[in-house]
């Protein structure tokens, strides 16, 4: 490998050893058009970290306004455009709505989805199933560029006349579909165009993942020998294929209503504003599972590795994820109880929603079964994985009683929903993303991260997360409405204002907690100690490869002999058995 140079910033080979057609490009082109799935994963990661900082800052600006309404926001106030802040740097009400919208949209579509699916889907699928790359490498890079372009279009909405849309990430019609109502016809149109392009990116990605998983597994890698993260992303990709096009269609109809005078959401022309909610939530509810399923997959694997035990109920995990994926498509109505719905219909949606608690409980039970009496290694990724389970239970439980219509009617427009949603999205999903980043960082970058900084990051984010979002339950039950920029104008909310201040202090701490994380990531890239090939003594295929991984991944196609989580096998000296190693003759493995 004398012709091979290691690119320190991404930690993998620039040269592929067979000519210069496409992958072996040097310099800038290496980053602009590179079809190696590992490079594309890193492109997704760096881009979405930028959006994480953007979307997170917006949240802090909003929290500042809610705690101290009308006070100029330090630092951030001077960076925001004049459509959002007044001259002295305080949020104006319309600007608050714009931040609500952009915070939600950016963090869902430009942080959570690309990190969970773009980064880890790309990085893990080929490595874990023993493939050289994705089925369609060029399509994969196209997916990244569509994602990038859609992000730029989304940011451009801030500079439209009238500013960014203030309609929320759910963009309910007719507010979104009627220019005079939202005041920024162009901004809303760009928002829709951006989501349309972003959807194309997700779809090209999903086509790749599904095809790769079905056709490119190494010999011996049966479906039920696949590691759970691969199963999770595979099921997620199927959800993407069915959910995203519906959002694209709905967004296209908004573009038409705004610009070509069609009447889809306009009652005067015979249209139906409620139509948007049906289409949006037909996408929107599966979207929640699109985000949470990969997070569940990562957690399952990390818990097993650091408990040195097989995943408890591997097949049950797979079936539970499939059932969650299916049920996700028949519960969208529970977002619409307050939008006017027949009682029998809301009862039906309530029942189907509560049924999702069953597979979710199976998974939670299995996670506990996995660590039960395990030889638990307290590492940072393990801590985040355990945090995922506990926060998921809190967020999931509040979800169950909101599925009941009478409860939902009372809490729907309050901060209770905000608390529930963030317990799932941040407490569960983002914590699992942190777990995954710490866990696979040695393989992605070839370096180890600093453990002290990792623990500081964990404790800060765990404590400040709960400080931010737990009081929101109380705020909601006390009647604080969502999407208001100044709670102090309501007499009934004056008594709970101190809670708002507590939430804001938590949010600022949560923002600061990302600083040790980012420092750790960037510092370790260059100065971290070189990572061994298998730092966690893990069994799956990516850890059998030396760092940095070559273009094409496996020098020799591996053969797989057994399931993915063979830890602590009785009678064996080593406490783990990689998937490509045959068990010694005297050892009998359990099924698959």
């Amino acid at each position: 490998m004398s012709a091979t140079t290691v690119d320190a910033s991404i930690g993998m080979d620039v040269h592929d050893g067979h000519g210069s057609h496409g992958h072996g490009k040097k310099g800038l082109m290496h980053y602009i058009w590179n079809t190696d799935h590992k490079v594309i994963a890193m492109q997704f990661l760096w881009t979405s970290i930028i959006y994480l900082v953007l979307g997170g800052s917006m949240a802090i600006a909003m929290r500042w306004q809610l705690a101290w309404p009308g006070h100029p926001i330090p630092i951030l106030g001077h960076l925001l455009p004049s459509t959002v802040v007044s001259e002295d740097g305080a949020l104006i009400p319309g600007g608050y709505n714009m931040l609500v919208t952009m915070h939600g949209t950016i963090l869902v579509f430009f942080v959570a989805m690309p990190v969970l699916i773009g980064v880890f889907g790309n990085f893990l699928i080929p490595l874990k199933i023993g493939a050289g790359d994705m089925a369609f490498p060029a399509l994969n890079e196209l997916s990244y560029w569509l994602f990038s372009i859609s992000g730029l279009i989304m940011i451009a909405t801030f500079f439209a006349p009238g500013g960014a849309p203030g309609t929320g990430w759910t963009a309910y019609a007719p507010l979104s579909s009627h220019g005079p109502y939202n005041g920024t016809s162009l901004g809303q149109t760009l928002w829709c165009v951006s989501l349309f392009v972003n959807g194309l990116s997700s779809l090209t990605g999903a086509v790749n993942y599904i095809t790769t998983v079905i056709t490119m597994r190494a010999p011996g890698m049966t479906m039920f020998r696949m590691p759970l993260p691969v199963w999770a992303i595979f099921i997620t990709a199927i959800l993407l294929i069915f959910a995203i096009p519906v959002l694209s269609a709905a967004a296209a109809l908004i573009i038409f209503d705004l610009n070509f005078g069609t009447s889809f959401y306009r009652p005067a022309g015979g249209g139906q504003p409620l139509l948007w909610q049906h289409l949006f939530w037909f996408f929107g509810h599966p979207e929640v599972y699109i985000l949470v399923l990969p997070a569940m997959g990562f957690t399952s694997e990390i818990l097993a590795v650091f408990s040195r035990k097989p995943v408890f109920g591997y097949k049950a995990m797979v079936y539970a994820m499939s059932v969650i994926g299916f049920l996700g498509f028949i519960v969208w109505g529970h977002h619409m109880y307050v939008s006017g719905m027949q009682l029998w219909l809301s009862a039906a949606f309530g029942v189907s929603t509560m049924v999702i608690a069953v597979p979710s409980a199976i998974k939670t039970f299995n996670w506990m079964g996995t660590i039960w009496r395990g030889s638990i290694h307290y590492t940072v990724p393990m801590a985040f994985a355990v945090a995922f389970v506990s926060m998921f239970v809190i967020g999931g439980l509040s979800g169950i009683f909101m599925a009941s219509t009478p409860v939902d009617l009372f809490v729907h427009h309050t901060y209770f929903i905000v608390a529930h949603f963030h317990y799932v999205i941040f407490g569960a999903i983002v914590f699992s993303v942190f777990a995954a980043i710490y866990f696979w960082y040695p393989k992605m970058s070839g370096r180890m991260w600093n453990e002290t900084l990792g623990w500081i990051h964990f404790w800060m984010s765990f404590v400040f997360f709960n400080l931010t979002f737990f009081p929101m339950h109380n705020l909601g039950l006390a009647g604080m409405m969502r999407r208001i920029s100044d709670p102090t104008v309501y007499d009934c909310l004056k008594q709970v204002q101190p809670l708002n201040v507590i939430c804001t202090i938590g949010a600022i701490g949560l923002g600061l907690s990302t600083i040790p994380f980012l420092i750790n990531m960037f510092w370790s890239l260059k100065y971290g100690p070189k990572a061994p090939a298998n730092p966690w003594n893990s069994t799956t295929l990516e850890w059998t490869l030396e760092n940095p991984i070559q273009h094409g991944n496996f020098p020799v196609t591996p053969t797989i002999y057994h399931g993915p989580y063979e830890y602590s096998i009785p009678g064996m000296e080593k406490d783990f058995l990689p998937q490509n190693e045959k068990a010694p003759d005297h050892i009998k493995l359990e099924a698959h």
Partner: protein
Amino acid sequence: MNNAAFNNASLFHAPTVQEADHHGHPKTDPKICRLGTIVFLCSEALLFSGLISAYLVVRAAGGFSNWPPNFHDGIELPAMPRLLTGINTVILVSSSFVYHAAESAVKKGKSGSSLILLAAMLGATFVGIQCVEWTNLYREGLWFNKGGVYGSSFFTLTGFHGAHVCIGVLLILWCFYLQVTRRTFTPQRHVALENVGLYWHFVDVVWVFLYVILYWL
């Protein structure tokens, strides 16, 4: 390669024997390409399902049988030209059969290029007749922004489909070009021809649904 282990694993597994392209890179296996196309078409199916269900929701909200609304904004709304479009439907569907015949010819080692061209021309004829119909309806007072949701949904749904047909015609013409100039498609390997075919059949099937739902329901 351990063949027994391989077969054991190959629930859906494609063979790994790969040909190389002119750069020396391995070509993607035809089965993998076909699967990719089918997954992509599933998402296309959901795009049209979204649009069709939007149409049905709007119809249902206004009373299902009260359609088309006779008047809107003082304009008498025209009825759908069922006969002309019916003929057009036959044209589009027959192009699918012609395309299939072209594929069979290629698989038997023939060129099939004239059949490929005929399929493209039938597709183009469909677009032409559809344009005439759009013009007629426009003259009668129906358009994206005229005739309320009746006009909106008709032009949006047929417009989305029309764009797909146009792309399909261009793809077929591209196949025709490849076959005439380079004789790209052989009985052994005809990946692009096969996948454009899948797309083309899909677009035709969607049209049958649209024709029934928009013109007869």
